[in-house]
């Protein structure tokens, strides 16, 4: 048996000098960041600063965009994610992603949650796994009706939670959440935040948000991105009360857009 080493938490995800270009234009520039195991990390920054692009480079979603080029490295549990013989589908199962737009499939709630499991080739009865995922996001109360409900008939808040359940069904090690409460009313937002709060024990969470108060409420660590550069990264409390970077301070005090 190997003893786990004492000291700082192991990084589960890390980038080194990560640069992402779209059609030649760099939107992430030399970003080096470590996401420690089991923590909640927030990425904040102005619109267009590259938050979504950084999230998408953690599970190789950027390469689905024609014209996107990635330089630098991304490691997941010590493995180079962009290595030629890495199975992309497997990467996306281990590092799940919830997009800013829920984009549910126009099918039943059950089919939405089961999609990833079926794609993976999980055989047999999926009800247990589907119900488990729905329970985590508060959409399962024991009544089978919800499974047959059409996903697009749900409220906006329920749709967002269903899109989280869909990713959770695969039991990812890491969950990437892009603006998880964008365009939700306060009550629905509060529900989603409480789900994220509870999920911290299940997996490592990276959260992109343009609401920095949300970063303050939810995350252990916060990174501030500005025009594709990582300006500051550290304990959330520290970064909020005592920002070292001028730009960070301007952003937090509302002097930047």
């Amino acid at each position: 048996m190997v003893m786990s080493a004492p000291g700082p938490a192991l990084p589960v995800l890390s980038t080194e000098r990560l640069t992402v270009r779209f059609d030649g234009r760099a939107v992430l520039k030399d970003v080096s960041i470590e996401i420690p195991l089991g923590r909640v990390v927030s990425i904040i920054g102005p619109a267009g600063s590259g938050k979504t692009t950084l999230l998408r480079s953690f599970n190789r979603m950027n390469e689905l965009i024609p014209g996107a080029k990635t330089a630098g490295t991304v490691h997941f549990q010590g493995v180079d994610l962009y290595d030629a013989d890495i199975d992309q589908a497997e990467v996306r199962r281990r590092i799940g992603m919830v997009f800013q737009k829920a984009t549910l499939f126009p099918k039943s709630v059950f089919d939405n949650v089961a999609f990833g499991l079926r794609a993976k080739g999980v055989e047999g009865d999926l009800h247990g796994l589907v119900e488990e995922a729905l329970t985590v996001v508060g959409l399962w109360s024991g009544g089978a009706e919800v499974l047959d409900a059409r996903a697009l008939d749900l409220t906006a808040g329920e749709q967002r939670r269903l899109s989280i359940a869909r990713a959770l069904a695969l039991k990812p090690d890491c969950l990437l959440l892009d603006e998880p409460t964008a365009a939700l009313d306060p009550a629905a937002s509060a529900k989603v935040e409480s789900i994220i709060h509870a999920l911290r024990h299940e997996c490592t969470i990276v959260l992109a948000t343009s609401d920095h108060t949300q970063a303050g409420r939810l995350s252990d660590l916060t990174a501030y991105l500005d025009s594709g550069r990582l300006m500051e990264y550290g304990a959330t409390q520290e970064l909020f009360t005592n920002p070292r970077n001028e730009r960070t301070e301007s952003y937090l005090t509302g002097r930047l857009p």
Partner: protein
Amino acid sequence: MGVAAALVTMSALILLTGVLLVEAREVLDWRFFLDPPSRVAAEGGVGPAVAGSLWLTFLVAAIAVPLGVGTAVYLAEYAPPTRLVKAVESVLTNLAGVPSVVYGIAGLALFVRGLGLGPSILAGALTLTALTVPLVVVNCRKALQAVPDEFRWAAFGLGASRWQVVRDQVLPAAAPALLAGCCAALLRAVGAAAPLLMLGAVSFTTFAPGSPNDPLTALPTQIFAWAARPREGFLALAAGASVALLLLMAAMHLVLFAHRRRQKGTWS
């Protein structure tokens, strides 16, 4: 504005059908749709031509739809946007706009003489297929591109392979538009007279084609042949054959509508 335009279009269609029915009133009865053409105008029918058009529709659909949809799926979902792929796409777009008579000349050289098929149903079907495939590809590629990328990302993000994304999300989402695109292309083929005339379609055959090797005959060429005759009675026959052609096209539209209705509610 839109309503007015729709009304004008509708009345034009009704007027057209009305004129055809009046012209064809003497010849239209059940016998007309089954009997072969005759030297005596009043005894002629469109039986062989209807059978020929049905054969052509069936054969063209069976070849052009899988080929065209497959090509469109490859171009829209798989092919990297290299210069070669872009060139192929623009060639197909241009081919889709080539006048049908040009396909007739190509078909005559390639299928009738080159492959020695003669002026047969099969030669006609292959020529119409060549005309239809680019149109199917162009229409279907548009249909696939209309599916928002978010759907693809959502599925990829859940660990789906490209084929799973295409099969489970993109194709179902695009299905109504794909079907409409294929039907539009097939309708063009069914109504085409020029290429078949180039191949040497017959307008006077006493038996309905029973196999793809039988002599080429079809409704549009039959209409053309009768309309070209000077004597009074044959114009009525041409009008009658036009009614038959419109009925065949209307039947294809009905299939489309029925399918749309079924699709409604599953995709928005």
